[in-house]
């Protein structure tokens, strides 16, 4: 793996990548297969980045599986997380931990 690689895309058809380390706003996100895009905001390690424009109500695909439904349109390069994704099952709105 080259030193440039800071993101993993688990399947070619996924619409999100996962940050392997913290990626700064405007930094290039690169995966091992040479996919590259500019991070539209800071993507912390373990968080998801949109690989393409995702419309509101679309499924978030990670490792071929739908891991949620978008609640807002997410432009390519932006953070995909609880502020723009909801569960297809149980929603936890409250924060139990802190």
């Amino acid at each position, binding site marked *: *793996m080259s*030193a440039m*690689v800071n993101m*993993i895309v*688990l399947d070619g058809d996924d619409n999100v990548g*996962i*940050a*392997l*380390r913290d990626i700064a706003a405007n930094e290039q996100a690169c995966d091992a297969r040479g996919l590259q895009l500019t991070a539209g905001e800071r993507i*912390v*390690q*373990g*968080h*998801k980045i949109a690989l393409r424009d995702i419309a509101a109500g679309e499924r*978030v695909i*990670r*490792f071929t*599986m*739908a*891991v*949620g439904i978008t609640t807002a349109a997410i432009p390519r390069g932006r953070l*995909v*997380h*609880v502020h723009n*994704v*909801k*569960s*297809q*099952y*149980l929603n*936890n709105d*409250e*924060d*139990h*931990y*802190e």
Partner: protein
Amino acid sequence: MNRASSQTVSGMRGFPRADGRKGIRNFVVVAYLVECAHHVARQIAQGYQTEGAQLIGFPGCYPSDYAQRVMEAMCTHPNVGAVLLVSLGCEEFRRGALLDMVAASGREAKLLVIQESGGTRATIAEGRQWLDAALVRAKAAETIPIAISDLVIGTKCGGSDGLSGITINPAVGRAFDRLGDAGGTLMFEETCELIGCQEHMAKRATTPELGRELRAAVEKADRYYNELGHGSFGGGNIKHGLSTLEEKSLGAYAKSGSRPIAGLIKPGTRPPKSGLYLMDTVNDGPVRYGIPNINDTQTITEMVASGCHMIIFTTGAGSVVGQAVAPVIKGVSNSRVYQRLAEDIDVNGGTIADGTETIDDVAERIVAAVVRLASGHPSKSEELGHQEFALSYKTYEPAGPACLPV
């Protein structure tokens, strides 16, 4: 079983038990049978814990078939060589049945009833005297070489993060594949953390009927948690990058590896043969006791009750958990937490994200850690004296015939 499965592994040794199982430890268990006896039991075990005495117990006063079954399984666990039961005297736990069962299993067993033994001081003195002698005998017990096929191994995660499903969990899955191929018996659990994976899991079942049971078990968890109003997903997961319960599930599911699923078991049920099993950890019937898995420790306890010799525990945020009867190996998903908790973590899977190791490399280190543990070397949590144990009320109905295909 194939020929490779019965091959002993150099260094791995076990304590043979009358039922044919082999333990990787020879613990002497001190078990309180109601919370009112907890203090006395703890005082008996204290000071002997580095010698191999382990404290377990059930706090409830009213009878519970589930708790009785788990305590019976714990006291006749292959890692246990002798048992001291500590009862107050008026609780409804069926202590006589437990004592008889332990004695019938060929283990040394003793019952102390505080109300009949002269109270706190006298019971502690009598207990320690018995324990002193039992530990000497436990240490002198003979061991025999064992194989991977003699081992039952469970996996569990706690405090998952966005990297868990990419690094340490797939590495555990790969290690599970290898251990299963060598004839090992393996289990994964927590159907509430598999919500979203049921269709994929059903396809891995060895029979279509079992596939339906696996799907039904996850749907039961979904119903239960919807009724409860919240599930196994919260702020800790969100902070570390997971957005939904099903995303967490996907990561947790990776621990199960890729081999066929041979059965669905409930806490305390032992897998009838080698292979990979799912444990259903959610109560049967209506929501009755609140959250079924009150903490990671209880779920681990349930897998140990189903015969696990050891547990492979993975975390993203960090965990220091151990277990009283079965040693825990802990793996972490990222190097940042590994560096912070290195004294507590056995395997760093963060090297996969760092790009310095592959999933196979980490899987190999996990298998090596399993062999080390089964060779008598302590895990990190054992070195630190961890011996967590938790047991509360639950209800289960017997599993149907489709759950364990012949």
